[in-house]
């Protein structure tokens, strides 16, 4: 477990809450963030957005199961998602909005980041492994009965994050 005193992590949690509560219309409950490589969620849909700024480079990742991704998509669209493309696009947009809101909060602190367009990976039995030393903080959250995860990954040369 880790605290939420880290400003980037704190901004990420606030950004995730703002985006999810606005887009899904339900309250979000966070559990304490988990720092390190040990635990990775079992997810079928992962949205990622890369960033660079004064703290260095890194990633914001949004993890969900396909079932939950379909629920989120249907809620956002107002109709049931009928194709995988709709689910991929919706998860990409959520990831994009979370990364964008984080960028806005960092800019308000005087640190203007560049953020990439989102990438969404869909499948099963895969995991992500960073090839260089990084700091990883996984933030579990719940919307109703649906468990989701937001992860902050920052290159180790910039552990000030």
């Amino acid at each position, binding site marked *: 477990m880790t605290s939420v005193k880290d400003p980037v992590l704190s901004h990420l949690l606030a950004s995730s809450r703002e985006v999810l509560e*606005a887009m899904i219309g339900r309250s979000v409950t966070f559990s304490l963030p988990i720092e390190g490589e040990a635990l990775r969620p079992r997810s079928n849909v992962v949205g990622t957005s890369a960033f660079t700024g004064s703290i260095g480079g890194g990633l914001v990742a949004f993890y969900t199961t396909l079932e939950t991704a379909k629920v989120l998509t249907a809620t956002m669209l107002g109709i049931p998602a009928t194709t995988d493309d709709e689910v991929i*696009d919706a998860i990409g947009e959520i990831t994009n909005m979370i990364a964008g809101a984080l960028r806005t909060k960092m800019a308000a602190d005087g640190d203007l980041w560049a953020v990439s367009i989102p990438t969404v990976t869909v499948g099963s039995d895969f995991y992500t492994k960073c090839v260089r030393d990084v700091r990883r903080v996984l933030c579990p959250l719940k919307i109703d009965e649906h468990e989701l995860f937001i992860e902050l990954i920052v290159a180790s040369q910039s552990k000030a994050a």
Partner: protein
Amino acid sequence: MTRFLIVDDSSTMRRIIINTLNKLGFDQTVEAANGREGIERLEADAADVVITDWNMPEMSGLEFLRQIRAQDRTRDLPVLMVTTNAAKDDIVEALRAGVSNYVVKPFTTDTFKEKIDAVLGKPTP
């Protein structure tokens, strides 16, 4: 009836914007997936208001906006930018390019209504 051109590479965002416009009583919408397609739509169909994303492939919303402002026929067209780019520098850049108003994602229906009212110069029903 006011006709909206919605330009966004995300089909999800286009649907969300159309749903929001429908809630506000607007049902005349045309879609495009990037600025280049947006220009083609404007050449083919008249639109009363353009709603565009910023970050898009092929032609960004900012470049799309500059092209709209460079054409006599579309120079005065109201353009609402809907984007996650909400840093002060971003907003200044968009205003310099001639954006009429600005909505930061995620947005509520009430926020969207305020911005639509502002670009139309009258309150929606």
